[in-house]
């Protein structure tokens, strides 16, 4: 092993140790008498000091040495950890880290030897030593086993004897041969000075050390590039297996089939195991957050406790790296802007100390990460006002927005950079960067908040980037893969529907998808695959539209042929092709040929569907309940309970359906039906609008089989679909609807005159709340869960 190898090992090991130090010191601040943690902190610094003395990094050794002296006092209970001491020690950790970086870059431990830091550390140990000494005995009473206390006593006195002149100790330690230092380190908590006196209790400790040591021996460091190569090879093996399986199916040979079956099993298992090697628990990046939170909280005079749930949730290494910065940002933001000052919290009747909760869990093939605080929450009204002032949205758009849409405005670029807005609205510095980074890896960000109670930011990300479910399409004779996360639905227009289905807006083709205009993008034109064809022809006259979502904007991608969904292994593009923004990567298909993966956002930008400034994203958000008075709107009229006329704006309607009674099933007390591969909860309007008291008495039975088919309005609300069962659908009418009066019963927004008759406008969120629907979220990417397992 060469010298540089030793240095490299030292660096790798020390970086890990320092990360742990950060964690342990912050933990100790809360629980200063945790002797195990103190011992561990001491050992870590001691090891670094010993090793760098051996390697000749004297400045680093000096810094570590003063830190160690202070830690000796802490460990022996002569000092109690307080914020000042913690800050000094963390400062030392930072200094050591800085010097390690220097060593990594230049091979030397740098020119600075941190005189002030060392002075502070030395001063702290002397001042505190005299000040705290009287209070020392209660500290020791807390140490549970009597034996160590007894043994520790002589060690203590020895240290106290040394304490007035800590400098004198230094040369002695420095001269200690390396072998002795290492041995002492492994001996653990006892430390070198106490060692000769407690041989009896050192023995069990040694065995504990030995056990941890054994455990360490079970893991080895492997380069990520080696894992990547393994992954590639396994991918190839799987392809070869697929080909063999195809052959063996056509050949009548029992032994060949048996062998290929076995190969099949082995290859599948191997693939799964190799996938696992790239997975890391999210705790790896969370572990640095206690330190971050402490520093930020201290900086702005707040008290914040951090809690973590689901640390063991595993993610692919590349994703872990990609979300590290966005998460750090969100955590800082929560402490900095979300949680209030202790005095403010007290006034509001909360604990002085704020809570920050990190939660990670798996859900339908994706990983959810939540960052919640119990701070002041977002002020929707202020965000709305500021957004309008800054021209991010128009007043009209703002008036139509739901609170949730409003909160999500903080992710817009115009919102984040301006200091003034940040102060008023609560948060937002760089939130657009967070969103962009998360979206880059196929994830989404969403924020929910309750005024005065706190804010939760939820980040949803795929499990792995290495293998993703994708839709494979053909265009111009070549296959292209479209990541499922961007896919909304597929529409096929037969030849006779094309002419009236696809219309032109000043030359730009659009398709009416449930009443909304969907801009169409022709893949062959965007990729310049073939000379322009007439939009209405091609592919035997039929047109395949892949409805995609890019940056909250929907568009339809017209392709020649839709093949199938497949799990594909993503391989990055080489730098020769990095300039081509339309492709996110490449992949090898089952037949061994290469297919390109479309970058949906890049494609949308190329086709100008999405502009750089996301301004159009806002126009997508259709009026939620009712437009401003005076505008003409289209309403769907239906018969409500008690022969009343009710209406909803047509824009809120996804579809009108008629289900035979036999298709209605029960899920708990809820009527449901199977609809387009999902379970659609059915809300009966007449039941939902009854008084709660009465409703409990209404039998929740299935409808009688002999009754006619039920009329269902399929609605989408906040991403959930549900069906509203109504008595009768009356009409669709366009009206100004500007004569209105207040509602007379629950679940009604207001009464309005439509087509000369009084009509009640249904309050969709209210009816949902009253029906307490637990709707299933449609999910396309469920298959990825299979791979990850």
């Amino acid at each position, binding site marked *: 092993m060469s010298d540089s190898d030793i240095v490299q090992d030292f660096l790798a090991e020390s970086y890990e140790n320092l990360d742990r130090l950060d964690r342990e010191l912050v933990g100790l601040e809360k629980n200063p008498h945790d002797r195990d943690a103190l011992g561990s902190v001491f050992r870590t610094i001691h090891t670094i000091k010993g090793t760098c003395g051996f390697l000749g990094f004297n400045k680093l050794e000096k810094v570590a040495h003063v830190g160690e002296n202070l830690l000796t006092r802490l460990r022996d209970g002569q000092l109690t950890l307080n914020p000042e001491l913690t800050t000094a020690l963390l400062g030392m950790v930072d200094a050591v880290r800085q010097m390690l970086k220097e060593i990594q870059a230049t091979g030397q431990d740098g020119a600075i030897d941190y005189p002030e830091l060392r002075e502070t550390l030395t001063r702290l140990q002397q001042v505190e030593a005299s000040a705290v000494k009287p209070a020392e005995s209660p500290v020791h009473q807390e140490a549970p086993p009597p034996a160590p206390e007894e043994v520790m006593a002589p060690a203590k006195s020895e240290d106290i004897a040394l304490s007035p002149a800590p400098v004198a100790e230094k040369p002695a330690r420095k001269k200690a041969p390396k072998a002795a230092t290492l041995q002492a380190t492994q001996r653990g908590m006892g430390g070198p000075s106490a060692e000769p006196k407690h041989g009896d209790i050192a023995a069990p400790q040694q065995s504990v050390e030995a056990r941890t040591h054994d455990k360490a021996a079970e893991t080895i460091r492997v380069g990520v590039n080696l894992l990547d190569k393994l992954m590639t*090879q396994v991918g190839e093996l799987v392809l070869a297996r697929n080909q063999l399986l195809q052959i063996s199916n056509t050949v009548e040979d029992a032994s060949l089939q048996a062998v290929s079956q076995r190969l099949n099993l082995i290859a599948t298992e191997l693939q799964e195991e190799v996938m696992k090697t790239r997975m890391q628990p999210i705790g790896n990046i969370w572990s640095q957050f206690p330190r971050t939170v402490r520093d930020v909280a201290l900086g702005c005079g707040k008290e914040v406790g951090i809690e973590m749930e689901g640390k063991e949730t595993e993610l692919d290494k590349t994703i872990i790296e990609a979300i590290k910065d966005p998460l750090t940002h969100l955590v800082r933001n929560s402490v900095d802007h979300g949680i209030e000052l202790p005095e403010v919290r007290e006034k509001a009747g909360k604990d002085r100390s704020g809570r920050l909760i990190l939660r990670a869990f798996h859900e339908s093939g994706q990983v959810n990460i939540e960052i919640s605080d119990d701070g002041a929450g977002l002020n929707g009204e202020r965000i709305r006002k500021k957004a309008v002032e800054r021209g991010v949205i128009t007043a009209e758009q703002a008036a139509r927005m739901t609170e949730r849409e409003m909160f999500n405005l903080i992710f817009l670029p115009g919102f984040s950079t301006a200091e003034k807005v940040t102060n008023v609205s609560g948060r937002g510095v760089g939130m657009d960067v967070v969103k962009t980074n998360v979206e880059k890896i196929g994830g989404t960000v969403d924020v929910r908040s309750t005024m005065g109670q706190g804010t939760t930011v939820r980040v949803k990300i795929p499990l792995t980037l290495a293998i993703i479910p994708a839709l494979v399409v053909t265009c111009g004779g070549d296959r292209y893969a479209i990541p499922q996360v961007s896919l909304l639905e597929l529409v096929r227009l037969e030849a006779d529907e094309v002419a009236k289905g696809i219309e032109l807006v000043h*030359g730009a083709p659009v398709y009416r998808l449930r009443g909304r205009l969907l801009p169409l993008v022709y893949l062959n034109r965007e990729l310049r695959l073939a000379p322009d064809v007439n939009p209405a022809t091609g592919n035997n006259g039929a047109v395949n539209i892949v409805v995609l979502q890019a940056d909250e904007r929907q568009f339809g991608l017209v392709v020649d042929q839709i093949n199938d969904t497949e799990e594909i292994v993503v391989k990055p593009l080489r730098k*020769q092709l990095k*300039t081509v923004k339309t492709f996110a990567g490449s992949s090898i298909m089952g037949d061994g040929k290469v297919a390109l993966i479309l970058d949906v956002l890049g494609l949308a930008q190329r*086709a100008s569907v999405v502009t750089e400034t996301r301004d159009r994203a806002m126009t997508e958000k259709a009026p939620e309940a009712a437009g401003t008075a005076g505008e003409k709107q289209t309403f769907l009229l239906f018969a409500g309970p008690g022969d009343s006329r009710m209406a909803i704006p047509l824009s809120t309607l996804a579809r009108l359906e008629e289900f035979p009674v036999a298709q209605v099933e029960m899920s708990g007390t809820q009527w449901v039906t199977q609809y387009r591969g999902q379970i659609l909860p059915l809300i009966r309007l007449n039941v939902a609008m009854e008084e709660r008291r009465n409703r409990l008495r209404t039998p929740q039975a299935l409808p009688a089989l002999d009754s006619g088919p039920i009329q269902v309005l399929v609605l989408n609300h906040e991403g959930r679909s549900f069906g509203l069962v109504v008595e009768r659908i009356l009409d669709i009418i366009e009206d100004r609807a500007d004569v209105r009066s207040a509602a007379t019963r629950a679940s009604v927004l207001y009464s309005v005159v439509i087509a000369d008759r009084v009509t009640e406008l249904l309050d969709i969120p209210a009816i949902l709340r009253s029906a307490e629907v637990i709707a299933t979220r449609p999910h396309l990417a469920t298959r990825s869960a299979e791979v990850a397992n």
Partner: protein
Amino acid sequence: MAQTSQFCTFYLDKLLFGVELKGVQEVIRSLDMTKVPLAPAVVSGLINLRGQIVTAVDLRRRLELEPRPSGMLAMNVVVRSDDGAVSLLVDEIGDVVEVEETTFESPPETLRGSVRTMILGIHKLNDRLMHVLDIEKACQMTEVAETPVTSR
């Protein structure tokens, strides 16, 4: 004895080129290629080299030679560049030659343009001249992708 080095030689439009043998990973026949729309013209496409996706660079285009006549199948010289393996498409593979330093000369001053940056020099062989190709330069895409044209 003068220092010698080995070159893998190939032909492009009847000219003889050589790359240092130690930079060559392998030489293979024509493979199925996936074209990359919107990519720089010198990128012929992507090939699957035993699970590794490799960019194929058309050396004729890169060196601003006549396009390859249709029907002529290109050979792949897979070289190791800083950015992983790259396949250079050539007309025909020649021998591996061993040359001495003494036969080397810098490219003539009259050789101009972007080609000059890719030719390290010339080795005078007995019967002809061998152009020594700079692998890194040849694999670099100085040319940017075609300027995107918005659809409307």
